[in-house]
C-alpha cells in the first residue's frame, strides 16, 4: 500500500501517511468537500461517439455480471489543472456518488479508471474490497494493455482492453483466494468476515 501523494509505503492500518501526513482531508482541500454525483461512465471530454457508448456500457455490464459484487467506472476528462491524477482518483472514489450503480455495490467495491484526454494520462483507483487482488503493478499492467490504443486515440478500444485485463487479473486473484483466503486478504490489510458462496 502506497500513499497517493508521496508514493511511500504505508502500513495497511495507517490513518495518515507517516511520511507526508496525507489523509483524505488533504485531498478534500484541493478538490472540494462536497460530494459529487457521477454516472459510472462519464465522458466529460466528449471523445466517445454515440455509437461507441453502448458497446462500452455493455463491456462494463459484462464485468458486473461476471463479478456481481464489483463495478467498474470510467471517467474521461481534461484534467490539466489537476496536478496529480492519482490523488484525484483517490478523492473521486471516496467522494463521488455513482447514480447508476446498485446500492449493494458501494464505492469500496469499485474500480475507477480516469483518463486525462489532454494530459495523456490514465490511472486506476480501487476500493477497499479490491485491495487483496489489485496493486500498483497489476493495475499498471491493465493500463498497459490499452496503451497502443490510447496512443491512437481509440479510447473505446483501449478501455475495453483495460477492463478485459482487469477481469483476467481478478480471476487470477479469485483462484488464489479460494485456495488460501486468509493470507490473500491479509496482503490487502483485510481479514475474512464471512466467506461467500463461490459458484463454479
Amino acid at each position, binding site marked *: 500500500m502506497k500513499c497517493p501523494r508521496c508514493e511511500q509505503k504505508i502500513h495497511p492500518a495507517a490513518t495518515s501517511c507517516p511520511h507526508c501526513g496525507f489523509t483524505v482531508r488533504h485531498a478534500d482541500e484541493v478538490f472540494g468537500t462536497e460530494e459529487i454525483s457521477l454516472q459510472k461512465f462519464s465522458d466529460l471530454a466528449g471523445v466517445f461517439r454515440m455509437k461507441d457508448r453502448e458497446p462500452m456500457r455493455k463491456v462494463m455490464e459484462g464485468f458486473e455480471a461476471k463479478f456481481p459484487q464489483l463495478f467498474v467506472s470510467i471517467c474521461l476528462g481534461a484534467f490539466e489543472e489537476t496536478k496529480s491524477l492519482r490523488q484525484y482518483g483517490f478523492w473521486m472514489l471516496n467522494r463521488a456518488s455513482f447514480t447508476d450503480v446498485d446500492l449493494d455495490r458501494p464505492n469500496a467495491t469499485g474500480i475507477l479508471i480516469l483518463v486525462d484526454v489532454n494530459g495523456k494520462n*490514465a490511472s486506476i483507483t480501487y476500493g477497499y474490497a479490491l485491495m487483496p487482488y489489485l496493486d500498483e503493478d497489476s493495475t*499498471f499492467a491493465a493500463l498497459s494493455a490499452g496503451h497502443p490504443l490510447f496512443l491512437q486515440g481509440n479510447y473505446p478500444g483501449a478501455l475495453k482492453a483495460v477492463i478485459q485485463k482487469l477481469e483476467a487479473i481478478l480471476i487470477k486473484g479469485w483462484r488464489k483466494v479460494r485456495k488460501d483466503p486468509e493470507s490473500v486478504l491479509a496482503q490487502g490489510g483485510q481479514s475474512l468476515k464471512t466467506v461467500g458462496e463461490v459458484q463454479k
Partner: protein
Amino acid sequence: MKPAVILTGFLAALLPAQEDLGLPDWEDEELEALKSGEYVPGSSLMGTLAREILDSEEQEVIELDPMIRDLPEEIPEPEELSKLLGEEFVSSYFHQPPEGFLNDPQKLLTTQEYRDREGFLNYHARDTDIDCYLYLFDDPQELPAGESLETLVKSQFDPERPVAIVFYYLGDPERSQLVFSDQVIEAVNQDERAKVLRMAIEEALEKSDPSSQLDSFSIQLSIRLFWLEKVVAKGGRSLLAGRQFVLPEDEPLAEDGDGIWESLVRNELLFYGLMVAAILIPAALLGILGRWIADKRRVYLFPDAEGSPLLEAPHAAGVGGVLSFASATAPPSSQKKDDPDYLQKM
C-alpha cells in the same frame, strides 16, 4: 581448260537460236481468210469429210445400223471381291514370326497410319509387361482353312512371355479376336480377359471411319492391358516373374472411376484411423466450445472481508498505476508516472 572452252562455244551457238524462238506471225492471206470466215481454226483436225459435211447445206442424219442399235447394253458385272486371304500373304501372317507389334502384310494402312499405330504399340511395349501384337485384315476377309489365331500363337509365340495377340478387321472391329499367351491365361481369369476385348471393341465402335476405329481400339486395348498388369502386381506378383496368380473372383478389376472411398475401405488402418479422428476431433472441439461458454457465463464471488480505513478514506485507498500515453515511441513501462508529489503544495 578445254571443257570450259567447249561449253562457252556451245552456249554462244545457242544464243542466236534462242532469238528465233517465238510465236509465229500470221501471214496476211491467212489472216484475211480467218477474218472472212473461210478459214476455221482447227478444221484440219476434223478431217476433210467433216469439213465437207459442215460446209454442205444438206444436214444428213446419220443413223446407226439397226443391228448395232438394238444390241442390248452390256452392263459389266462387278467383280466379286475375294473373301479369302491371298495365298501370297498366308505365309507372312501365319508361318513367320511377327516382324513387329503391328503386322500389315497387305498394306491396308497408309504409311503414315502404319507408323502412328506401330509407334503406339512400341510405346505400349516399353511401358507394360504384356506386349500387344496386332494383325490387320480387311473387313470381309476370311482366314484360310486350317489357320487360326490360336495356331498362330502356338506356333510363333513363346508361351512363357506375357503377350496379347489380336486379329483386327479394318472397318469391322466386332470381328476382332484376342488371344493371350499361356503366361497371361494362367494369371488372369477368363472374365477379365474377355473384358479387355469387349471394352476395346466398344471404344472402337464409337468412331465411324476405320482408321479412327483402329486408333481407339488399340488405345483402349493398351489401357485394359495396363490395368490387368496392375491387378496382378497388386497381389505382389509379376507377369514376368513366371509365377501364377489367379485374380480372386470377388475382387473386380479396378475401374477408372475408383474413388477415394474405395481406397479408404481397402486400407483398414487408414479407414479406422480416420473414423476415430472424425469422432474425436469434433468431440474435442465441442468440449473446448463448452468450456469457453461456461467460462463466459461464470460468476466470480469474492469472500466478504473487513479492514480498517486508511488515510481516513471511507471507501478507497487503493492507488493504482498511472500511465502516460504521450509518446508513441516510448514503451509503457517508461511512461509510468510514479513521481512523488509530497513536496508539492496542493
